[in-house]
């Protein structure tokens, strides 16, 4: 089975701060890590490969330093790393990113199964997985908590819901985005780390993947961030005091006033 896992390098949320003036993420001195949800997608891809055979290719769009997370993925069992990197990709929104990744998946020879994390912890949109499936015209399921069964041309999964889960069967090739409950990612192995150190990371430019200039980067992005701000807390707040009985009495009185 040919598996592509999409991963993103993100600032470590544990240490991230907002720049008070611009309200954007202050990345200075903040360590970059593999997006935590993507670690679960990678683990699922690698353990699926161990079960049914095949190859795991990890794919990332990002600046040259995103090569680090691809090496980390190889240390965790991926076979190959591909970095899609070009100044022309800068400023891409989720639409342009989905397009770019779709072109990259085609450029590496396609995939029977594409795995993504549910969302990235920096943008938190959860749009790129479904967007990529749309661009490739593939079926997809988001928030997968378990792969129940996989055959040559179909896959059966559990989609996490608020009150339980759905069982969904979909034909391959397909795309899944996964939640953290799906597995416990392994720690990179010693042999994996040694392999990762020597591995050659393939770097593909916009031209290499045949991306059209008007569809990528800022130009290809129908959405733009107009303003980032922390909303002012609004609404009236009142704190009741006294014994629990007294507080409840006050609350009931308050509610009655609205009725």
């Amino acid at each position, binding site marked *: 089975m040919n598996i592509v896992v999409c991963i993103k390098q993100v600032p470590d949320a544990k240490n991230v701060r907002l720049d008070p003036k611009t309200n954007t993420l202050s990345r200075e001195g903040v360590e970059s890590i593999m997006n935590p949800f993507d670690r679960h997608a990678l683990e699922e891809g690698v353990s699926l490969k161990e079960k049914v055979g095949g190859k795991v290719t990890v794919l990332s769009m990002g600046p040259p330093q995103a090569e680090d997370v691809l090496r980390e993925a190889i240390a965790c069992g991926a076979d190959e790393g591909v970095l899609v990197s070009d100044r022309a990709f800068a400023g891409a929104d989720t639409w342009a990113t989905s397009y770019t990744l779709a072109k990259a998946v085609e450029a590496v020879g396609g995939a029977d199964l594409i795995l993504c994390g549910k969302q990235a912890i920096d943008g938190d949109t959860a749009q790129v997985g479904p967007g990529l499936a749309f661009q490739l015209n593939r079926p997809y399921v988001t928030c997968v908590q378990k792969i129940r069964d996989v055959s040559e041309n179909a896959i059966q999964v559990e989609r996490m819901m608020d009150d339980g889960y759905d069982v969904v069967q979909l034909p391959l090739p397909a795309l899944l985005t996964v939640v953290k409950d799906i597995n416990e990612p*392994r*720690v*990179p*192995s*010693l*042999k*994996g*780390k*040694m392999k990762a150190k020597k591995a050659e990371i393939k770097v593909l430019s916009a031209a290499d993947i045949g991306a059209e200039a008007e569809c990528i980067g800022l130009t290809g992005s129908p959405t733009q961030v107009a303003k980032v701000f922390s909303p002012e807390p609004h609404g009236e707040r009142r704190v009741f005091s006294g014994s629990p009985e007294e507080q409840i009495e006050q609350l009931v009185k308050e509610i009655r006033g609205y009725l």
Partner: protein
Amino acid sequence: MDYFLTEEQQMIKDTARELSEEKIIPKRAELDEKNEFAADILKDIAKADLFSIFVPEEYGGLGGGCLESVLALEELARGCVGVATSFAANGLGILPVLIGGSKEMKEKYLPSLAEGSRWAAFGLTEAGAGSDAAGVKTTAVLDGDEWVLNGTKQWITNGGEAQIYTILALTNPEKGVRGASLFVVEDGDPGFSYGKKEDKMGIRASATRELIMKDCRIPKDRLIGRKGTGFITVMKTLDVSRPGIASLGVGLGQAALDEAAVYAKQRVQFDKPIISFQAVQHMLADMAIQVEAARSLVYGTAKHIDTHPKDMSKGSAMCKVFATDMAMKVTTDAVQVMGGYGYMKEYPVEKMMRDAKILQIYEGTNQIQRNVIGQELNKEYA
């Protein structure tokens, strides 16, 4: 402090630390409370290739030495000495095969042990043979093409969980220790079973159990090395393995220091963090001095052993004594720095203090280690 580790050695240390942080620390309190063997964590350790560290490359290992093993053990012990003990006992079980086994025997056992798909244990101690290892009563008699073993081993780490056991038995009881031989007994061999499971004060994530051999029949070729060489191989094994126990002390001491220092910065009394009081600072300083001194001694000894010298007993015993006495003191002081909170199970240092005690006892009590050092000194100054 920079110990000028090679890139590969640093990689081993980092991998073990990642395992500690991601797989061990989140589960250690529960394993301790439930007295539960950490099988899943050992599988994670296997997946990360740590079981292969000291197995030679020709048998599927990484071909590392004592220092590489010590680095991994230190970081695992920082997470939990119970888990690290299971991992260390596996190494102890393999060492006799590495030291005294034939090429065929190594080919048979080492690849699966390097993979971590099978685990090993070492069966020396008996009810009447602890510090006096020569008091072993288990016997092995050759009957046709098979050895027949009879006896009971006590307090065997990984007992009932490992698949491969190296067992010391007397093949010529009249000759005493010169009549002892080492054998490989496998899980499932006829006449081999497991007895009492121990309920321990500390290292509760490790399994400690009796091994019972009742007319246990094993093929002739399970003898490790030559007949009568068992005791020498055991002594050589312990010389190489003791720095491993010492490194458990270093990892544990470091973990206790980390907990105590973080706490001392946060805990406010008399309107100040308690780390600002000299009484607490001096305790932390002494802890840090002891941990670093032990680490230096352990790394230095491990490097010495990796040059395959003849005189390794003294250094090996010295680092075991120093680092494990240190761990007992430093964990006790960590509880003291943290006061009432340190004594409670919500914080990890009370477990660390319980875990520390065994380090002064197993793999040769610290009194026996001092005997070894004393005897060597007696020879040196002859």
